[in-house]
């Protein structure tokens, strides 16, 4: 039996975990300010965070919130934990920044630090590095949040050696920023947790 044991959201510049508010930046400030303030509010200490693009920052913040009260990272071998994420805009947000840096031939200064984020699955890599997770991973691009797609892939992974997973939706497109991460564990944990199914994933995403 697999359960969803923890989840976190970033929506409308509010960071929540398991239904509880962690940080509210909805009333003021820009998106970059929110991303910095929410990082500080979580007491994170990871200087590399500041070098990341918006997509990765959203993923890192949401992951930290989801995993904070969870024992997942110590209860399972890190090479048996998978990461499966998806979004609609791919890395478009950073692609635009890179495009702007190469569009003027007279001021042609492409930034290597920007270019490395012109793939959406880099957010998986950043999470994997920070939390030392070395299991399976996949990033999907779909038109909208697709609980069925994520569930099907998770089921396939759990038929293999995967024992736990970090899963969700991380989207950055201009000022539109959103993240939803949920943790799935293959264990005999109490029935207080939601069983993994499409309805449960959809219900949590829509919270």
């Amino acid at each position, binding site marked *: 039996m697999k359960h969803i044991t923890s989840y976190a959201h970033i929506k409308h510049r509010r960071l929540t975990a398991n239904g509880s508010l962690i940080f509210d930046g909805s009333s003021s400030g820009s998106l970059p300010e929110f991303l*910095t303030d929410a990082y500080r509010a979580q007491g994170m200490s990871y*200087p590399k965070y*500041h*070098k990341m693009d918006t997509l990765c920052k959203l993923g890192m913040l949401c992951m930290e919130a989801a995993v904070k009260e969870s024992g997942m990272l110590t209860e399972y071998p890190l090479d048996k934990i998978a990461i499966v994420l998806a979004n609609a805009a791919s890395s478009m947000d950073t692609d635009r920044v890179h495009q702007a840096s190469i569009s003027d031939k007279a001021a042609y*200064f*492409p*930034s*290597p*630090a920007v270019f*490395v984020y012109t793939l959406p699955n880099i957010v998986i890599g950043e999470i994997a590095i920070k939390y030392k997770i070395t299991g399976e991973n996949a990033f999907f691009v779909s038109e909208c949040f697709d609980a069925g797609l994520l569930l099907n892939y998770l089921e396939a992974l759990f038929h293999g050696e995967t024992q736990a997973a970090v899963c969700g939706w991380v989207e950055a497109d201009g000022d539109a920023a959103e993240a939803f991460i949920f943790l799935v564990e293959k264990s005999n944990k109490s029935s207080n947790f939601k069983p993994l199914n499409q309805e449960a994933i959809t219900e949590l995403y829509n919270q």
Partner: protein
Amino acid sequence: MDALIEKLKGQIIEQLNLAEVKPEEINPDSPLFGEGLGLDSIDALELIVLLEKHYGIKIEDPKDGKTIFQSVRTMAEYIKSQGKS
């Protein structure tokens, strides 16, 4: 030289997004890579871009970077040697 070092510290912090580092915390003689600021390979490329963008200096052979980017002081000395400060 001191003014150039101070200017470089600010430019490095901005270019490399070292948001948690203050200029006064950077020892001009500390190694930029490995220890000290703990920069990585992408940061090395950014430093090459910084020299080109702000000082018009192109490093043709990446191997030269090992000497030039040893510390903030060696960067400043290289800029000065190129007559670009």
